[in-house]
Each structure stands twice: as structure tokens, then as C-alpha cells.
């Protein structure tokens, strides 16, 4: 009962603040709203008995990624005029992208792609040791792929900065 109330609270706040990210005009408020949303997701992880994921969510997304976002937003010093140009994607493209992602999600969930993941948690708390063992044995390949992807993104970012400096 209590857990259900918490779940409703976290999800409602998450959806509300996610809408805020998209709908608010001031980029700093959007970023703050995203921070609120990420906190709610951490709360949901907690309800799914995974304190490790919840803490990592706060650590990585709230503590590092969003700080960088805010840093970039403030550094660009966006004044009222520029908001329009940056955030007015007209036409069918954004709708198509959103619809495509939504269809993909539904397909994955109903196609049984999430079944294996659903079985793992939810009934008992997942401690760090189990988590680490599963990550480095069963899911080693996806883990390595993600690491490589992040490395590529990092190198790419450095290359782009170097080029723009001449």
C-alpha cells in the first residue's frame, strides 16, 4: 500500500517534470526539471529493490551529466532571442522520431525482449556483488560494447574540439 503510494508519487512527478523539460522556455529551468525527473527515476529504482542502480543514477546523471549540461547552458549565455532558433523544430520530423521510439519500446516490451530482465529483480534486493558478477559474466559482451561506444564518443569529442581550434 505504502509502496504503491510512493510509486504513484515518483511516477507522477517524473512525468510532470519530464513535461516541464520539454515545455518550459528557459533552458536553466528545463535542466532543473530534468534533475527532478532523474531523481524520481532513482526513487523508482529504489522501489525495484536496487539501491545500487538508484545511487548510481544520482551519481552519474544528477551529479555529473546534469552539472555539465548546466555548465554548457550557462556558458552559452542564452538570451531570449536564441531560444526560438534552437528549439523550433517544425514539421513532421520530431513527431516521426517520437513515434518511432514509442513503437520500438512497445515492440520490445510486448515482443518479450524485456522478459529476462523482468525476472531478475523486483522480488528481493539486488546487492552490489550479485550485480557486479552478472555484469561481468552474463552481460560481459553488452558491457564491453557500451564501453567501446563511450570511448568512441569521448575520442570524437576531443577530435572535434581540436579541429575547431585549428
Amino acid at each position, binding site marked *: 500500500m505504502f509502496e504503491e503510494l510512493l510509486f504513484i508519487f515518483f511516477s507522477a512527478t517524473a512525468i510532470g517534470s519530464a513535461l516541464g523539460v520539454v515545455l518550459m522556455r528557459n533552458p*536553466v529551468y528545463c535542466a532543473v526539471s530534468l534533475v527532478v525527473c532523474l531523481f524520481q527515476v532513482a526513487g523508482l529504482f529504489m522501489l525495484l529493490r536496487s539501491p545500487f542502480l538508484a545511487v548510481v543514477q544520482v551519481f552519474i546523471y544528477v551529479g555529473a551529466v546534469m*552539472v555539465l549540461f*548546466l555548465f554548457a547552458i550557462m556558458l552559452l549565455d542564452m538570451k531570449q532571442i536564441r531560444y526560438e532558433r534552437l528549439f523550433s523544430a517544425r514539421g513532421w520530423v520530431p513527431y516521426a522520431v517520437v513515434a518511432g521510439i514509442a513503437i520500438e519500446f512497445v515492440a520490445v516490451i510486448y515482443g518479450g525482449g524485456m522478459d529476462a530482465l523482468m525476472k531478475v529483480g523486483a522480488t528481493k534486493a539486488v*546487492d552490489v556483488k550479485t550485480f557486479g558478477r552478472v555484469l561481468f559474466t552474463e552481460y560481459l559482451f553488452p558491457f564491453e560494447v557500451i564501453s567501446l561506444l563511450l570511448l568512441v564518443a569521448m575520442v570524437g569529442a576531443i577530435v572535434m574540439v581540436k579541429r575547431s581550434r585549428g
Partner: protein
Amino acid sequence: MTEAFIEVAIIFVKVVVLGFILFSLPLPLTWLERKIAGHIQVRLGPFRVGPHGVLQPFADMVKMLFKEDVIPEQADRLLFRFAPIVSMVPIFMVFVAIPFGESWTIPYINKEVTLYVADMNVGLLYILAISGVAVYGIILGGWASNSKYALLGGLRSSAQMISYEVALTFACIGVVMLASSLNLIDIVRAQTGGVTNWNVFYLPVGPVWFVIFFIAGLAEINRIPFDLPEDEGTLAAGFHVEYSGIRFAYFMLAEYIAMVSMSVLAVILFFGGWDDPTGLGWLPPIVWFLLKVGFFVYLFMWIRFTLPRYRYDQLMTIGWKILIPLSLLNILVTGWMII
């Protein structure tokens, strides 16, 4: 039912007591800091209000409470009010996971209570994650003030936080590897039994962990020599230049409590927590714990009035080119030693 009720009541009482202690802690700390500053610089420090100026913090408190609460005309009013609270709340939340000892039996009713609010199996990660959230107070406060000095302070703070959080976390990884647990109580238990078992004396990597942790910790809590976000020389007072009265006091409160939390973390991770270094047991563990924490608080103040401030490029060089590679190397060496 009553069992559960008593448990909830105990947690509630612990949180209230802890909150009260933390809220009143800055009073003696400000006095101490100014007194230490005075003596290091060969002067007396506060001396007028009460004997040796001990009532000075109360006078300051009254001043803060009655000062006009100025909100600049062009400021973002909502975030301007919100920011001091954002910088204060996470620092208090950190203490939920901090153990002050094993347990304590209340006299007369023989009820044993644990000296921590929550025994989390991800305690260390929780503390690092939540204390990282406090930086939003500084960033948002700096932005909402709509002043260039405050904005620069906020920007410096965010870049500094990102750079040094990496080194701070890597320094903690060594400790986690040795105790093979993220639970702070387990980490302390792994160090019991004399000074040689303390992580700081785990040669040769222990001292290096500690030095990295300490330097990165100084930067995380914005103390001199890394207090670039509030650099008086170039930024007036940095992120809190537009704040006055009680909102300014919130920022100061957060800074002092952050200093205490960093000292507590240093003691738990590297100096055996409540472990008795003499092994004789003539002082209760909690006293040892507080003595060690007190030493680190003093050390932070001592450093503040001894060292000059680094330039911004030096700050970044130390973080990225020295501390992070060194901590990576240290993790590697630690791995070899454990295997």
C-alpha cells in the same frame, strides 16, 4: 506492531538529534575558525563578545537573522530563493548514511541502539552521490543572481566539481577493493585492531590514496587552496556575492557541515573510524571517532590560513593531469597487491 513502532520512533529520534547537532555545529566552528585564523596570523581573533569572544557566533547569528534579505532586481526570484536550500539539504542527507560507532546501550532501560540512522550496503556510493548534488546550490545561486561575478563563481564551481569528483571517487575505490564492500561499517571493521590495519598505513598505496582523497576533498568542499568559486581577489565573493542575511547563512552552514562530512569520511575510510589506536580501551570508541574528526576539522582550518589560492589553470592541471592518472595507477597497484 509495537516493535515496528518503536523502531520507527528510534529512527525519528536519531534524525531529530542528528539534525539538531548539525544545525548547531557551525556556531562553535565559526568561532574556532576565526580564533585559529587569529592565532596563526599572530593576532587575537574575536575577543569582545564574551570571554575570548565565545559569544561572537551568537552575535553573528542575530546579525544574520535581522539583516535585510536583498533579492536583486534582475535576479531569477524562484531559483534565487531555492539555491541556498539546495546547497544545504544534500549535506544533511549525507549524514543519514554515516556510522558514528557500532551500538550504544541506553542506561536504565537496557535498549541497544545502533549509532547510525541507516545501514546501507551502498553507503559510500550514496555519500559520494548525494554530496555531489550540493553543487547545484552554488551553480543555480550563481546563475539566478544575474551578476557576472556570481555566474563566474557558479561556472567555476561546476567545472571544479566535475574534475575533482572523479579523483575523489577513484581514491575511494582502493578502500572499497581492500574491504570488498561499499558498506561504511564493513570498511571500518576491516580496519580494526591497531594502527597498522588502518587503510592509510596500507603500504605503499595507502598514503597515496589518502593524499589524493584529501586534495580532492578540499576541492569538493571549496576550501582554500581550491576556493575558486568564491575567490575574493577576482570575483568579489563569487557565487554568493548577491546573497545577504539568512540565505547567505545557509550557504555558510552548508560549507561548514560539508567540511565536517569530509573529515568524517576521511576518518572512516582511512583512519579506522572509531578504532582505538592504543588498543587499551580507556576511551569509548565514539570519543576516539570525534577526536579524529576534530583533528581533521582543525587541519582544514589550518590549511586555509597557511596556503595561498591556486590559479584556475593550476587547479585544472592538478585535477586532470596529476590526481586522476595517479589514482588510476594506484588502483592498478592495489589490484596487484590484493591478488
